[in-house]
């Protein structure tokens, strides 16, 4: 939850880019034209989410709103539960033996954990990109992008176009258009990760979850991925887990700081990095622990 505006009338809160009541974007992006590219996006809301690994209580009463078409970053030290939160959103958490989740996770009005909801359907709506790029080694670049469709048994009338668009969306098309049938693992690390993003984008999800997507990559590839995230948010709602605070600062509209399974602070990225409200957030972002 974004806390209510606490600045009183006479004060200029220099820590936010515009007036506190404006819908927030990070200062880097500049102003969007009024009534301009506002896509009807899809929001994810977590309410009182608790997750367990056997007896271990990993996430405690987490309530977060992920606004549509925005990038929200989850930061926090190792073991704070950020990856677990994200895996509960697309129910990947269930793949771990002994893991369970309780509470409400909603994609718009759909309760993801409802009894009659098919978990594979949820995962087609909520895509995921992992820390280590994982293209399928036995498949070509083309097949990798198309894998999402083949693995879900979805028939597509124009597979080639879809693959083309997906590769373009991630900025890979020009680099690979002449070798679509060569193996996916023949690409560099940064390219592989973009390939994995293309694979996710090809199934046309509404939300994209990213679990430390750039931490295994070199700095230039990292920056390219961040550029990509900035472009992708036009069409998707993005949640990114990162242990690199500078990355969260660069990329996210709002940031959630987690510690030991709890949400400590959730606010505009600007505020978190110039004037956080909680002492623990201040100590974490300034590097006094973590």
């Amino acid at each position, binding site marked *: 939850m974004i806390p209510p505006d606490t600045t009183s009338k006479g004060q200029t809160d220099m820590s936010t880019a515009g007036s506190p009541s404006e819908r927030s974007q990070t200062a880097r992006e500049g102003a969007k034209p009024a009534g301009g590219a506002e896509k009807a996006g899809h929001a994810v809301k977590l309410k009182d989410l608790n997750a367990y690994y056997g007896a271990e209580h990993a996430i405690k009463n987490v309530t977060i709103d992920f606004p549509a078409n925005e990038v929200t970053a989850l930061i926090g030290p190792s073991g704070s539960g950020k990856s677990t939160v994200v895996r509960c959103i697309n129910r990947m958490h269930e793949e771990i033996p002994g893991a369970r989740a309780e509470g409400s996770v909603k994609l718009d009005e759909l309760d993801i954990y409802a009894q009659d909801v098919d978990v594979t359907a949820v995962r087609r709506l909520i895509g995921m990109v*992992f820390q280590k790029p994982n293209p399928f080694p036995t498949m070509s670049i083309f097949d990798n992008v198309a894998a999402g469709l083949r*693995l879900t048994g979805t028939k597509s009338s124009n597979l080639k176009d879809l693959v083309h668009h997906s590769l373009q969306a991630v900025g890979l098309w020009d680099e690979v258009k002449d070798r679509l049938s060569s193996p996916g693992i023949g690409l560099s690390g940064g390219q592989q990760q973009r390939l994995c993003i293309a694979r996710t984008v090809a199934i046309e999800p509404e939300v994209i979850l990213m679990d430390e997507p750039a931490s295994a990559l070199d700095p230039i590839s990292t920056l390219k991925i961040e550029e990509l995230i900035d472009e992708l948010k036009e069409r998707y709602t993005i949640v990114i887990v990162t242990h690199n605070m500078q990355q969260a600062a660069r990329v996210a509209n709002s940031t959630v700081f987690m510690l030991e399974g709890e949400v400590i602070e959730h606010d505009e990225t600007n505020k978190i990095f110039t004037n956080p409200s909680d002492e623990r957030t201040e100590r974490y972002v300034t590097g006094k622990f973590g």
Partner: protein
Amino acid sequence: MSAITTAPRISARRRRTDKVMRGGLLAATIIALIPLILIIYYLLHKGLSAWTTSGFFTTDPTGSFFGNPGGIRSAILGSLEIIALATLISIPIGIGVGLYLTEYGKDGWFANVVRYFVDVMTGVPSIMFGLFIYIVLVTSRFGGTGFAAWKGAVAISLLMLPIVIRSAEVVLLLVPSSLREAALALGAPRWRVVFQVVLPTSASGLITGSLLAIARGMGETAPLLFTVSTAFGLTFSLGQQMNTMPFLIYTDITSPRTAIQNIAWGTALTLVVIVLLFNLFARLIASRSRMA
């Protein structure tokens, strides 16, 4: 701190110990190699002469003590037939069990029980499989016959099964879980993850494991003794007794007639060469997949 100009010296005693160790290990290696070399020498020495007799590969054994002993054609083909059937039985089942253990059972109690039994089976002497099939299928005259080739194939498949399962499990575990995660996160149902991602990725490893199991199965004699027995003529009917190479070696080597003994050596050489070829083939597939 002054600049470094020389490296520290190793004491004479250490150098001596080093030499002694190296010498010892070299001696052990040579001792291990000697029997192997002798085997190869004997095989070649005795077997090649059989190979060069006319009709060795093209005629069947005549079964007569005197006169022309014939060739070993029916034995070669019989072995290949039986092994083919055994493969057909054990490989799919074995890979299936491997898949169950890695994808579904994982660390559950039942999976662990299965693993324990598989381990036990690898230690069971091959003669036990022969005896088991003998009691269950042969003496009961199951299917209307006593000894039969298919019953031998079943015995061999039981022998191959634990090898296939073990190697399959190892190979399947080598498939990074990140690939399974990626497929699941795309919304794939578990069975598609297995068939479209896990199996293709582990394919070469599974083939290698299977080939090694086949190579092992080809050389087993004991199970065949009690299940297939033997025949002289060429037959393709799996419901009857059939000639096999191991069996041929077993019977011919004790013959007082040298010509027949030589046939045994020739058969042994043939068997070793076929097994070698299987092994080489397995290696080729493994290295090609590594280079890809």
